[in-house]
Every structure is written in structure tokens, then in C-alpha cells.
């Protein structure tokens, strides 16, 4: 018989396969390693397939990305134990991210809008995103590329929504700073 497995495979193709780009994007920015990202997404897909029943009324994208994140941590653990690579720890502060000092800096750029709106090369900006500290990078990718809501990001990362918000703010300001620095160095962006 096995018609249930076939149903599950059908559901997987309908619900999960369209999200593979999202999964790969998230894994890629978390791991910053193209082949590791493939392994992570493959493992996540396997888990998703086997536990597809528990998807139920969850939003599939956030559900799948949660699995991807777990697989990423499992992969990272393995890599760290093998001693091949080290990872930054996510210990940096999450204190309420203020506005005052950033507003001052924004003030100094005569026209940040114009600089930001300049045509920029995708690869250069991807590098900048990859250069962000892990927790800011994660929030930014989930929001801007995976298009999750604050609540979904909070659930996925286990952070309060307030923290999600300040991480996003921080990520955007850091990115803007890098952007402006590159532009200042005369790099064609």
C-alpha cells in the first residue's frame, strides 16, 4: 500500500519544495558556506519529510526555517568539535538599541538616501550581510529575504519581539555603515 507515504510525498512537493530557495538562502547566510548550506538543507528536508505530519497548521515557511536552523546548529556543533573551524559566539549585547547616537551619525552623511539608492552590486552587499555578527545577520535575513513577521522571527529564534526589533535596527545600521564605508573607499557599489 504505502499510499500515505505517497500522500506525504505529494504534500512535501506542494508545501516544502517551493520553499527550498528560502531554506537554502537562510542556511547559506547562517553557515556562509555553499556546500555546507546544501548539506544543511538536505538534512532539514529529510526531517521535514519525516515529520510532515507535525506541520499541521503551522506556517510552512517558518516551520521549515526552524528545522533549517536546528540543522545548522547541529552542523556547526560537528564542525566546532572537529576543530576545523571556529565560530563567533552570540554573546554580544542585546541591550535596548538606542537611537540617539545613530541619528547623529545619520546626520553626518550629507545625503545617505542618495548614497544608498545608488546602484549596488549584489555580490558586494551579500558580502556585507555575511560580515554582520551572527545574531544581527540572522534577524536581517529572516526579515528581508525570508520575509517572516516579527512574531515568526521571535518564535523561530526564541527571542522576545523587542530583541528581534533591536537586532533588526542594529543590523540595518551596521549594514548602512559598511555600505557608506565601501562607497567612501571608492568601491563601485
Amino acid at each position: 500500500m504505502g499510499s500515505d507515504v505517497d500522500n506525504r510525498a505529494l504534500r512535501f512537493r506542494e508545501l516544502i519544495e517551493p520553499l527550498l530557495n528560502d531554506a537554502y538562502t537562510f542556511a547559506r547566510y547562517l553557515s556562509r558556506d555553499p556546500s555546507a548550506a546544501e548539506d544543511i538543507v538536505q538534512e532539514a528536508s529529510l526531517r521535514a519529510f519525516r515529520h510532515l505530519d507535525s506541520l499541521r497548521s503551522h506556517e510552512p515557511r517558518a516551520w521549515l526555517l526552524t528545522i533549517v536552523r536546528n540543522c545548522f546548529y547541529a552542523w556547526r556543533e560537528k564542525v566546532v568539535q572537529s576543530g576545523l573551524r571556529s565560530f563567533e559566539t552570540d554573546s554580544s549585547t542585546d541591550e535596548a538599541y538606542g537611537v540617539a547616537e545613530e541619528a547623529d551619525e545619520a546626520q553626518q552623511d550629507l545625503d545617505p538616501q542618495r548614497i544608498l539608492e545608488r546602484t549596488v552590486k549584489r555580490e558586494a552587499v551579500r558580502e556585507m550581510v555575511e560580515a554582520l555578527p551572527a545574531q544581527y545577520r540572522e534577524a536581517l535575513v529572516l526579515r528581508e529575504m525570508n520575509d517572516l513577521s516579527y512574531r515568526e522571527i521571535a518564535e523561530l529564534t526564541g527571542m522576545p519581539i523587542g530583541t528581534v526589533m533591536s537586532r533588526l535596527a542594529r543590523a540595518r545600521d551596521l549594514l548602512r555603515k559598511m555600505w557608506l564605508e565601501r562607497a567612501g573607499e571608492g568601491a563601485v557599489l
Partner: protein
Amino acid sequence: MNCAATGKWIDALLDGELDPKNAAEVEGHLAECPRCKQLYEARRAVSSNIRRLDLGYVAPESLRSRIGAMLEAEQAAAEQVASERRDAAAGQAGAQMVTPALAESARVIPIRQAPAAPTSTRSAVPQPTATQSARSATRGPARWVMLAGWPVALAASALLATVLLQQRSQEADEVVAAHVRSLLADHLNDVVSTSHHTVKPWFAGKIDFSPPVPDLTSLGFELVGGRLEYLDHQQVAAIVYRKHGHIINVLASLPGRDTANIPHTTHVQGYSVRSWRQSGLNLVAVSDIDPSELANLEQGFEAPPAPSPEPASPTP
């Protein structure tokens, strides 16, 4: 709204995460504060540039084919298992008697899991691989006998319990979400008052029931105010208390299909949730306070420490 408060909400505004009322307030400040406006524009530009550049990746073809192969392998393995189990079940049916207890425990499966007749989405449980062969065996006259027996029955009931728990926690999730929203968006109260004489009448005419608003100061719960919530298509009265700096939202609603299913006590994302029925209403308290405090609160609601048991009547 000042600069500090606005700064906190800039990203929420540009991400469309603010409710209209707060969005209007933040926008109001941006309109008159060039500094904040500039910061808003800077972050918005970062956001729109990232989106315009489309920085996401496309899953490589190699990955897709690996996943496709994996899927096929999983299907093949599952069919293998199913066929072995079928053989085993058939052998069992011919060879041995099944005790009434076994049959009883197994009977749960076809009743609860009959895929053809789910009475509602709530009872439509997932379809575990462990019971595939069991279900396929329920057609013939020897249906009970052919069930694989204990292991399947146990697995199925454990699964059922998990599913019910999950569904319940989704409703609890919504309550917690309402709680978090109320704290997040500074939208804790529509009516601010420490007097239940003000808060209780405020609800009159706004909702078609009168929520209990007991005076619980003697228990250490200070009334902060009340507001209207709209939770999963239901109007809900939120009565807000504070104790030791913790905010407690008590959500009162008419018995409906939703909050009624929240377990008596549960935890969601570090928040305690406690629900009970009272005078024909469903009440749910949610807070980050110690769960035992919510038990005290419930007692306070059910037997207000004021002289009169009727919360609406004057208390000294």
C-alpha cells in the same frame, strides 16, 4: 511621542508591524522631527535596497536532485516496512486469538482516525506511518484482529495526545501573542484606571457581556486598566493588573470554540497561561509572573476578597 520612543518603533513602522494607532503616532513624530525622519529614511533605504537587490539564493540543482533522490528512498523504505507489517499482521490474524483488552485498545484507532469522516478539522489527526497498515486493515470483517495491537495502539494514542496538546497550545499561543502585543505596542489600556468602578462600566456597551473586574489590591494585584481585544474573530475584554512590576492580562470572552480549549495551566514561550470558567465566561490570565501568582489571581476572581462577592458592587 518623543525621539527615544520613536526610535524604538522605527523598524516596526517600516516593516509594517505597527497597528494603525501607534503607526500614526510614530508618523506624527517623524513629520516634525527631521532627525528621526532621517534615521527612518536611512533604515528604510537599507531595507528597500536589500529587497531590490534580491540577495536571496536559488537552491542549486544538485541540491534539488539530492532531495528528490532522498524522497524516493524514503518512499521505498516506507513501502518496504508497510508490506512487512502487512505480512506480519496477516500471519498474526491466522495464528492467534486476540484478547478483548487488546481489541479494546486497538478500537480507538479506527474510530479516532477514520480518514474518511473527520468530524471537524480538530479531530483530523495526522496520519502516522505506524498506523498505515493498521488503517488499511480495517476494511475486512477481521478488522480488529488484523490490527497490529499494542504498539500501534499506544503509538496512536500518544500521537493523538500530542496533537491535541499542540492544538491547545496554538490557542494559548494566540492569547500569549495578545499579551505580548499589548506590552509591545504600548497599547495596554484603552481605559486607564485603578478603580474597578471605572473599568467595569467602561466595557458596558462596547461588548455584549460584563466581565468581572474584582478589586484585588489586598492580594497585591493592582488594577491598571482595561481594553478591548479582538482575538480570533471574538471580542475579548482584557482586564489588566500589575503585581511586582509584572503585567497580567486577564482576557474574558464568551464561551466560544477557541479559548475554551486552553488547558487549565500551560506555558508558552516563558509565559504562564491559566484559564478557567466563571459566570458563563471563559477567563484566561497570561503573564510572565510566577504561575502560583496566577493561581492566586484566579482565586481572587472566583472569590473576591472584598466584602461583597459581586465584583461590580462597591468595595471599601
